[in-house]
């Protein structure tokens, strides 16, 4: 989507290589992206906040460092947009919620620290569905984000702002968070690469929690290689996150060109229905492309796949109801005054949260409350285990699995806002990977109805990101025209 007609570098890898070798200045990289933002942001609204001054300052620092021969990191000078649910010290972090509007965290998320160390330049904080609850970025207290391919349509969600920012060329890279598909679904709808890493591969410290056992930060980019580079930069053990996996950063890029010869690619024969025909067609072409590249296509069954949605919509709201209890108007964020503390809690939360957030808090509170725990939350945890078992069995026969990322191409704004269940069904194919903690990514694979992007999802067993990326790289090379 970028309108850079000259040979100026656009991918993160190219930008970083040129900046590191003093061929292109970070300052110019930043100016070009800011110009693009200036040109189209009003129509798209990818950002809650554009950090123009900060980005310029940081770019100047990097240029200075380059000029004296210092190593400026693998992402030197690369503009990156952050989903506005990652804490940035002294910089407003809102979760697109009225309740946090204006709050400036006194600390940085671990990913933010890592990005700085890697030389990346944070160019803005992107819009999202409030507290990452949604699949269209329409549940934002600051208004919806629009799809750069067609501004009458949604970018997907909840990381819609981050997906749109990369698709529109506002930033070479962005980070989103994925609790039930919130990176992969908007990546598919915006025609960019989006990755949900293995749970625990990327630190959650400083990521404002939606559902702690499902949340994971991951990259958006225009190319598979860029996503690989970014994921390597942000992954690795963090002592501040108890669920962080105790190993070094993921090792992916080295294996990116290994191809898929001999790889067993699984087709899930009992996949839940609901994908539109254009999406199904692309998926079939994806299998063909991989077969042509030497992969073996195998049929597998994941019978519990279909129960993912239910397990997810009981577990995620339950955790969320607890995670969002801290927005009580006492220590940070906004407060609505009332004569006593209890009334203040209720006034603050009733005013501060949007409808979808309230709906999920109530659903989760119900699922956990006395008398219902066993029937809902407790049962959902068992279904979760069942799903994990089914995937484990499937991975005995296949190395990776392929499914649609989203059941449809981008839909119009307002299409699903009145019926929460119809919105929830957008996550049918992405949810199981969050429940199992296994990695999955969406890679653009041609277009569907109305010429809109279609994404194919590649799933892999825990910590098998390298295999997943190899598969995605092959699909990227064989995109149908």
């Amino acid at each position, binding site marked *: 989507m970028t309108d850079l007609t000259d040979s100026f570098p656009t991918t993160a890898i190219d930008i970083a290589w040129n900046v590191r070798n003093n061929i292109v200045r970070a300052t110019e990289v930043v100016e070009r992206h800011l110009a693009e933002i200036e040109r189209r942001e009003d129509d798209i609204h990818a950002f809650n906040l554009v950090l123009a001054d900060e980005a310029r300052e940081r770019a100047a620092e990097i240029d200075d460092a380059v000029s004296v021969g210092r190593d400026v990191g693998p992402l030197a000078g690369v503009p990156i947009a952050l989903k506005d649910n*990652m*804490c940035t010290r002294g910089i407003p*972090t809102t*979760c697109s919620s009225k309740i*946090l509007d204006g*709050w400036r*965290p*006194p*600390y940085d*998320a671990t990913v933010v620290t890592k990005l700085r160390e890697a030389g990346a330049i944070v160019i803005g904080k992107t819009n999202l569905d409030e507290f990452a609850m949604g699949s269209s970025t329409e549940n934002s207290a600051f208004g919806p984000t629009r799809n750069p391919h067609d501004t009458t349509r949604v970018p997907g969600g909840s990381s819609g702002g981050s997906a749109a920012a990369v698709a529109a060329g506002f930033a070479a890279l962005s980070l989103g968070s994925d609790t039930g598909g919130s990176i992969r679904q908007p990546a598919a709808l915006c025609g960019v690469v989006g990755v949900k890493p293995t749970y625990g591969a990327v630190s*959650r*410290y*400083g*990521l*404002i*929690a939606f*559902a*702690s*056992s499902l949340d994971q930060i991951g990259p958006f980019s225009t190319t598979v290689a860029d996503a690989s580079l970014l994921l390597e930069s942000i992954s690795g053990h963090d*002592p*501040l*996150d*108890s*669920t962080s996996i105790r190993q070094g950063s993921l090792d992916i890029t080295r294996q990116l060109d290994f191809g898929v010869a001999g790889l067993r690619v699984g087709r899930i024969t009992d996949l839940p229905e609901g994908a539109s025909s254009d999406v199904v067609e692309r998926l079939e072409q994806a299998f063909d492309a991989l077969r042509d590249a030497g992969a073996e296509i195998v049929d597998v069954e994941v019978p519990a796949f279909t129960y993912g949605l239910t397990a997810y919509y009981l577990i995620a709201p*339950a*955790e969320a*109801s*607890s995670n969002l*209890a*801290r927005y*009580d108007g*006492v*220590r*940070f964020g906004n407060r609505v005054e009332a004569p006593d*503390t*209890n009334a203040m*809690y209720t006034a603050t939360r009733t005013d501060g949260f949007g409808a979808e957030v309230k709906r999920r808090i109530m659903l989760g*509170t119900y699922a*956990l*409350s*006395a008398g219902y*725990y066993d029937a809902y*939350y407790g049962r959902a945890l068992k279904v979760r285990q069942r799903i994990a078992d089914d995937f484990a069995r499937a991975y005995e026969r296949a190395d990776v699995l392929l499914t649609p990322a989203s059941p449809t191409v981008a839909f119009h704004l307002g299409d699903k806002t009145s019926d929460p269940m119809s919105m929830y069904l957008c996550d049918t194919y992405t949810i199981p990977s969050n429940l199992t903690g296994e990695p999955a990514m969406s890679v653009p694979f041609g277009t569907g109805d109305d010429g809109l992007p279609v994404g194919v999802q590649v799933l892999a067993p825990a910590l098998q990101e390298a295999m997943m990326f190899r598969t995605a790289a092959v699909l990227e090379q064989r995109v149908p025209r």
Partner: protein
Amino acid sequence: MSDAITSEWTFRGYEMVVGLEVHVELATRTKLFSASPNRFGDEPNTNIDPVTLGLPGALPVLNRQAVELAMRLGLAVNCTVQRSTFARKNYFYPDMPKAYQISQYDEPICIDGWLDLPDGFRVGIERAHLEEDTGKSTHVGGTGGRIHGSEHSLIDFNRAGVPLVEIVSRPDIRTPEQAKAYVSELRAILVAVGASDAKMEEGSMRVDANVSVRLPGAEFGTRCEIKNVNSVRSVGRAIEYEAQRQVGMLEAGESIRQETRHWDETDGRTHTLRSKEDADDYRYFQEPDLVVVDPDPEWIERVRFSLPVLPAARRVLLAAATGQRPDAEAILVVTDRDQDAYVLAVAAAGGDASRALVHVKEAFADEGARPSVPAAALATLTRMEIDGELTATQAKQVLAELAAGGGGDARAIAAAKGFEAMDASELETMVDAAIAAQPEAWAKYCSGEGKALGALVGAVMKESRGQADGKAVTALLERRRDA
């Protein structure tokens, strides 16, 4: 079992059934889930970090030392250390930053132990689990810092996140004395193993009591939980008041409502705080931000072997050395002051353990575990008493001098004071002189009026300038009378 502690408590035929829940702040450097200091008395809100404040995005990481201290305590009260998990207890209160407390719920770290009271009475321990403390609220305006009538409240989060162990006893306690002894003993163990300073006055040890009453042999009655019991003495008072209140209600034909009650130290009563019907629905579920704690057997054994000799065993040793019962007052007091080893050292230096015990209990209340008087000096002193070289009164004076000078030679001090074993004939001369000087008193004494003895003994003590042994004087007078 001694009568002192297990003596029956009944009220109009009812007995009390009591279980105690004791919260103890662990003596770590930092908080349970974050690296800000666990320190009492600092300026408000200076010991805070994103986790302590429950800021968005903050995540807990468990403090290894807190786990080890909980294990030390658990093993000291004979618990099994097991695989454990953390849960969230959800409720709104301004001093609870995240609006949930991270606590151990259905899988606590320590289970199934017991604690023996000094008299041998055994109280079962159901569990001991780790959890985080809350912040502290101060109520401004209104009267006396109470919630009711206050204009607003101020919150200090320094204490939020401080590691606590909650020790839950089984409902084995039947008397206020047992309850007090349980709390004292638990406190002594906590201090001995270094788990906590267990200062009730600073709030680092807090007691809740579950109290019910029943006719002996009947089923357990409905219980009430009493909060805010802040001293050992109050534990006894609160449960006694509460048990009597419940008996009163039953006798009046009313039934007991399960509720939480608050102990009011000033009026000596318990008051309703909330009834079970409006008890919170805590929606416990496993904390997704923390992982399982499963100490390996090697760690558990290392902790077990590093435990010191516990107060109960120390009392038995001291009792054996001094010929007393392990629950004798002097044994309890001296062990509690950590001076038991000193008494044993006096005995090892050739002194008399039982006399040393009395001296230490009475003269060394303000001294620590290592009194300023060298054990050898006190040993000499007790030997001189045994050998009749010093009377009890003289020994006290010599000891006072030794203590004041931080040691010295007992024999030299006695000599300097002119204390010598009084010659028997000298004493007889003095006794005869006293009889001659007070014929009326003598006549009364002989006719069986015991009170008259005092005047005669007093005269001898005066004549000897306090050097005579009172017991010897009495014995001589008896012999004269019976002759």
